[in-house]
């Protein structure tokens, strides 16, 4: 068995069929599919069991977060290569073969990621050089529009500093060396953290735009935008504390303080839910934030 595909499902039953169908077609006989269900309430586990009996399912009793669930899948995986894949994706034809080939051609590379495409055909920026307050600021403001246009013209593989784990092919031995995902992240930045640790433990990261994967994005967080924004900030602060240059954490906290003040002014903290959210932000930005 060559490739173990690991998907984490959280209430995303509607995307499972097209995703798994494309994955099955792409993997052929060379792979196994493992779905870790993070306590979905939309009937996904029963649906999977009846419609995709060949898929190995690990059903969690509670939502342990994205990284922890992927690690569960990793522990059950037998492949020499691991494909981390979001449930709201559809693999383009030949994409897996292309990713495998790129990894084979680059023995120095630990991971390779494809171009991620919106359902309307436009590019997502799923890679970057490095992550710090300044780098994220520059990338979001200036580089992303440039990348998006450049991707339409140039399609050659390149070395990058991080890749999205929405679709990521990684060597198993590199994953075992770093011990998989850091489970202290609940959602967001666990992939950037993973890439960072892959890169500093001797593996290169390659972006391969000749492989294309349609990625809807945000499928499991719609309807809970405020919660997921908070999770994003919490994880961002975690990452900055661990890996970004010293100034980044300071500036992010300053920025978040201003953002919280702005949210208060716009009335985002009204009602019981709003007050709970404000308490969470206050705790995040306080001294005992739980963010090392």
């Amino acid at each position, binding site marked *: 068995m060559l490739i173990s595909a690991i998907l984490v499902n959280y209430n995303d039953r509607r995307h499972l069929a097209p995703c798994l169908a494309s994955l099955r077609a792409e993997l052929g006989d060379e792979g196994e599919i493992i779905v870790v269900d993070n306590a979905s309430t939309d009937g996904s586990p029963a649906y999977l069991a009846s419609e995709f009996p060949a898929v190995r399912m690990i059903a969690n009793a509670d939502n342990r977060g994205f990284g922890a669930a992927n690690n569960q899948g990793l522990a059950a995986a037998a492949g020499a290569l691991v494909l981390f894949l979001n449930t709201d994706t559809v693999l383009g034809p030949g994409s897996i073969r292309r990713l495998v080939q790129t990894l084979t051609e680059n023995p120095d590379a630990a991971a390779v990621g494809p171009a991620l495409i919106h359902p309307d055909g436009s590019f997502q920026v799923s890679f970057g050089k490095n992550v710090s307050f300044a780098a994220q600021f520059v990338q979001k403001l200036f580089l992303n529009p440039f990348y998006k246009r450049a991707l339409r013209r140039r399609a050659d593989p390149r070395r990058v500093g991080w890749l999205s784990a929405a679709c990521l092919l990684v060597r198993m031995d590199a994953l075992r060396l770093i011990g998989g995902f850091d489970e202290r992240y609940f959602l967001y930045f666990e992939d950037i953290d993973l890439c960072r640790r892959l890169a500093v433990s001797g593996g290169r990261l390659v972006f391969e735009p000749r492989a294309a994967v349609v990625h809807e994005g945000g499928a499991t967080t719609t309807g809970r935008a405020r919660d997921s924004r908070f999770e994003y900030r919490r994880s961002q602060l975690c990452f900055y504390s661990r890996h*970004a240059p010293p100034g980044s954490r300071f500036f992010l906290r300053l920025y978040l303080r201003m953002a919280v003040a702005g949210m208060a002014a716009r009335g985002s903290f009204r009602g019981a839910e709003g007050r709970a959210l404000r308490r969470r932000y206050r705790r995040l930005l306080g001294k005992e934030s739980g963010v090392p």
Partner: protein
Amino acid sequence: MSRLRVMEMIDKPFLGGGQAIVMALARNLDRDRFEISVCARGGGPLEEEVRKDGLSFVPAPFGGKYSFGLTGKIAAILRREMPDIVHTHGGIAGLYGRMAAHKAGVSKVVHTIHGIHYLHYRNILLRAVYADLERYCSKFTDAVVFVSEADLETGRRLRLAKPAKLRLIRNGIDCSGLGTEDFARRAAELRGVLPQGSPLIGTVARLHRQKGVVFLLRAAGAMLAGHPEGRVIVVGGGELENDLIREIRALGLERRFLLLGERADAREILACLDIFVLPSLWEGLPLVLIEAAALGRPIVATSVDGSREIIVDGETGLLVPAGDPAALAAAVNRFLDDSALAARLGEAARASVPPRFTLDVMIAVHSELYLSLAGRNRADALRAPEN
């Protein structure tokens, strides 16, 4: 007789050397005689560890070096908890914690200096200021504990406290887990995961200027020159990570000098190393060096206070001057060229750990210290009846 209530206080909630000692004390002091609580900033792995062991954790709002109003807040906590003894660890807890204990009227205060770090600050003025703060705080401290003989001597020379208050309690580690089959199995499994080529040279250290990891990096080229499959691995995270990554790239060692970050299985990784290096610029009494010795690793360390007390040059390891990559590389190459020497010194290192650096001794001496302080306190109370 009621149990003696001891509060172990440290500022940061992450697991470093000082925290390891706090945890060792909290776990192993006799619970029939002591009621231990741990006070630190909440929310980190230390809190988890403490609570997991069913011990009481008291969160305190420790911040950076300069925290206005912190003394008052800790004093309020101490008035509420009212321990018989407050034992502070490290500079920040030592400063604010001891002032707070004084303010709250805690009867006995112990402070452990886990390495006299401020003497190595680059700012000369700060060195003097911190030494003076130490002297000031010692006035309301009943025992100032140093972790190595060299530090004790320095403390005496700088008159950091009255000579009668100075104590030496060496750090100790729990060796019982290292010889087990379970540990050997975990280490063997891990060896299958780590880079397969040999030699595997490495260190376990926070990425802080103190630990001198950059000198290991600068020596790495010369160490690995004759060993194309060799790797240097570093376990630990910290503020210098980005600087280190930049220098690794500049030296073109991305594939050979590997950063593994903070790991829970650092001891198992130590067991897999062919050579352990501790390139520190200064130390207290480095636990990791004791662990590497207890695991019988061939050791190259810098000749700094603390490390010198664990490793004897040419007998239980090789010592080199601090901050000298060439000397570091030469010592590592001596081991690489002479595997018999490496094996012999590693074995000698293993034999040298007990009984000097064992947990039992460290716990027993602390226990004695706490009891004698409390005993003196009771005698005082008898002599001067309360009004």
